[in-house]
């Protein structure tokens, strides 16, 4: 139990939807969500297949604890080959859609092929329909959700959909569910668009059962109490993730103006304090906090934009509340593009959710375009007459909308930073790894973060490892390899449970183990979970190697390896990846070329 033991396989080329039993042997090896979907991906496609080809597979995966009473049980992952990276993509989302998919009776929804016409999927427990989406194609995520609820006369329907960006293959298009939660990174929305799939609408009433209810409820009670009493949890609830902006400013790890600097003067105009301070019109940005399904943290922010602000003064349709700034959106619309106008940042966030795009990749791509503009490589002729100077708030919101609607220079921005920089002859200005843009941490100040970025299987990512403590303590490359490897494996387990990574503020593997072991069949020990995490990481690596990636892709831009940090606690330092990477490969049991050895694969039952 806890697994539904059922998957839904939809072939859009054939127009078929079939229910299959879950491969329980794989579930016992890979747990669920990220891990299990990776196994299904590996078994269902050739990793060399182009990400936008009908042969790519798009998997929506819940975990064994998704939909249970465990805190933060709303998570699901989208696993596919990413068009931004040509590597495995694994994007995790909250909201309520994932739990609903589980309540409808499915562990995984696997979408393959390509529909000849735009369609959406309507799932009501075992009743699955592939329906025409002609009326929805070309419309926004927000419109799509409203339309589907109305068309099916079901306000309880949960929807995951793409906007025009995803329809047109914007390389960092995401899949948005519940209006403002997203499987955000690596362009999973573009894959959905390439399949002519506009939306998945689901209602479920089967529910979820666990193996040992009494033991499970005790574990839930204990772990919820531990989480509630944790100071990190309290900060997430009260300040949201954006509390990080003050910490990174002080530390000198806040990437600014396309990583030319590591501190940003305007940080205090967009931090949590600014979000709760009335402006000159008496308008306060933040309204309240909000939880995803089952979550007792509630880090989400609900905000609104000053109606007198230039972005929406004549656009009443944006006068409502919606998802507000989190750290990564604040960073990607703030320091990295040099903008400190909180209403402009909030509006750009609205646009990302409405049109279905990843704020991190968009912001960092715009930052590269701004640097090219200031260098004179591109001009007003390229940018539809918009002055792309760092700090131009109007440029931020205008370009966000153009990219979302796939218009003008927005089509170029939609390539992502790597392809954009290559197009204009300056590949060195791309700030990311494997084609995916960096999150809001400069790896000259945070050395282990750099190693995590370089080795993350989905390209630059701050959520696949956790070496914050080590990075704060010591700003050299020493002692980072093993904690990076171990936290990557731990994170792979958390991402495979159906719960949120933010619980790790209070929970170690033991707390996940108590809940998994009570909910799932089989004996799940701490050791077994650790091995499962390492197995998942190595399987992802195998996918990438088979897709054609190599050691050469485990690297960082020269700006971080050769140009010293200009200020902050790491002033004068560069990232010491050359020291960390060999140690890391060794800790992983990989060859010096970054390939898992036979022994390693055998140890992990992957050979």
């Amino acid at each position, binding site marked *: 139990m806890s697994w539904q033991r059922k998957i839904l396989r939809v072939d859009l080329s054939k127009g078929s939807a079939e229910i299959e039993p879950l491969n329980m042997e794989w579930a016992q090896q890979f747990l669920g969500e990220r891990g299990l979907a990776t196994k299904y991906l590996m078994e269902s496609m050739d990793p060399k297949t182009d990400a936008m080809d009908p042969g790519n597979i798009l998997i929506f995966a819940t975990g064994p604890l998704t939909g249970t009473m465990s805190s933060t049980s709303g998570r699901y992952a989208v696993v596919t080959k990413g068009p931004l990276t040509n590597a495995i993509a694994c994007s995790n989302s909250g909201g309520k859609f994932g739990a609903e998919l589980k309540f409808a009776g499915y562990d995984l929804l696997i979408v393959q092929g390509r529909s000849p016409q735009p369609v959406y999927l309507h799932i009501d427990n075992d009743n699955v329909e592939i329906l025409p989406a002609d009326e929805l194609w070309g419309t926004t995520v927000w419109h799509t959700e409203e339309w589907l609820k109305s068309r099916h006369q079901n306000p309880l329907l949960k929807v995951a959909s793409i906007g025009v960006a995803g329809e047109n293959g914007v390389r960092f298009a995401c899949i948005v569910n519940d209006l403002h939660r997203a499987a955000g990174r690596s362009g999973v929305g573009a894959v959905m668009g390439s399949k002519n799939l506009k939306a998945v609408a689901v209602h479920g009433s089967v529910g979820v059962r666990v193996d040992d209810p009494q033991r499970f409820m005790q574990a839930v009670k204990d772990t919820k109490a531990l989480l509630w009493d944790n100071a990190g949890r309290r900060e997430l609830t009260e300040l949201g993730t954006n509390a990080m902006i003050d910490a990174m400013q002080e530390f000198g790890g806040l990437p600014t103006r396309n990583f030319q600097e590591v501190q940003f003067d305007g940080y205090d105009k967009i931090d949590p304090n600014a979000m709760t301070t009335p402006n000159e019109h008496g308008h306060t940005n933040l309204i309240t906090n909000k*939880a995803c399904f089952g979550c007792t943290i509630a880090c989400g922010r609900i905000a609104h934009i000053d109606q007198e602000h230039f972005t929406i003064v004549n656009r009443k349709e944006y006068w409502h509340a919606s998802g507000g700034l989190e750290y990564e959106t604040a960073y990607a619309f703030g320091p990295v593009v040099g903008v400190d106008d909180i209403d402009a940042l909030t509006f750009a966030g609205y646009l990302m959710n409405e049109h279905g795009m990843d704020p991190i990749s968009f912001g960092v791509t715009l930052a590269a375009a701004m640097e090219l503009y200031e260098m004179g490589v591109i001009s007003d002729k390229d940018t539809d007459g918009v002055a792309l100077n760092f700090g131009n708030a109007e440029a931020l919101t205008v370009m966000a909308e153009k990219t979302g609607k796939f218009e003008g220079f927005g089509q170029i921005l939609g390539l992502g930073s790597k392809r954009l920089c290559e197009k204009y002859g300056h590949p060195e200005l791309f700030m990311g790894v494997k084609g995916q843009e960096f999150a809001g941490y400069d790896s000259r100040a945070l050395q282990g973060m750099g190693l995590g970025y370089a080795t993350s299987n989905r390209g630059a990512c701050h959520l696949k490892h956790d070496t914050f403590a080590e990075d704060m303590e010591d700003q050299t490359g020493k002692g980072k390899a093993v904690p990076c490897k171990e936290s990557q494996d731990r994170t792979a387990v958390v991402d495979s449970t159906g719960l949120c990574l933010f619980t790790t503020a209070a929970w170690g593997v033991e707390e996940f183990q108590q809940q998994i072991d009570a909910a799932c069949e089989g004996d799940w020990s701490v050791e077994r979970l650790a091995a499962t995490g390492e197995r998942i990481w190595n399987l992802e690596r195998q996918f990438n190697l088979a897709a054609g990636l190599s050691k050469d892709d485990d690297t960082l831009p020269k700006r971080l390896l050769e140009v010293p940090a200009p200020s902050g606690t790491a002033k004068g330092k560069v990232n010491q990846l050359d020291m960390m990477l060999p140690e890391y490969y060794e800790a992983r049991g990989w060859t010096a070329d970054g390939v898992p050895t036979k022994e390693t694969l055998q140890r992990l039952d992957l050979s």
Partner: protein
Amino acid sequence: MQKALLINPEKCTSCLQCELACSFEHEGVFNPAKSRIKVFEFEHGRRAIPYTCTQCDEAWCLHACPVEAITISPNTGAKEVNDNTCVGCKVCTIACPFGTVNYNADSGKVAKCDLCGGDPQCAEACPTGAITYVDANWTGYERMLESAVRAHPAA
């Protein structure tokens, strides 16, 4: 002392722990579709309001039932549905002015809040205190206290 559920929407984050707890207590399964308490969200989550039966003194559902399947618990005052008596006629679902009695097509019976026999699991599960179980005669106590402090800030 008779107690009542007190709902404070200002504190609700829309996490649905209450719906999970309710369905688990009554159906043995985590299934918000079978919850007797529902959380409603407005304007992209700007407001969230948990809503369930208020246990009317003169309960419309109880009076409407033709087979006397709805009775008053002597312990909690809750209006409880006896599944063995209920014939699934749904007249109570029409009679209830608040919509808090609903038909369950799987069981062929109606379902409503029964205060979990005096230990409501929704209140137990709520992390923020948006749902509490308090003295039925003093559901306004906390708000009265807050108003008093507001009216006399020096106190």
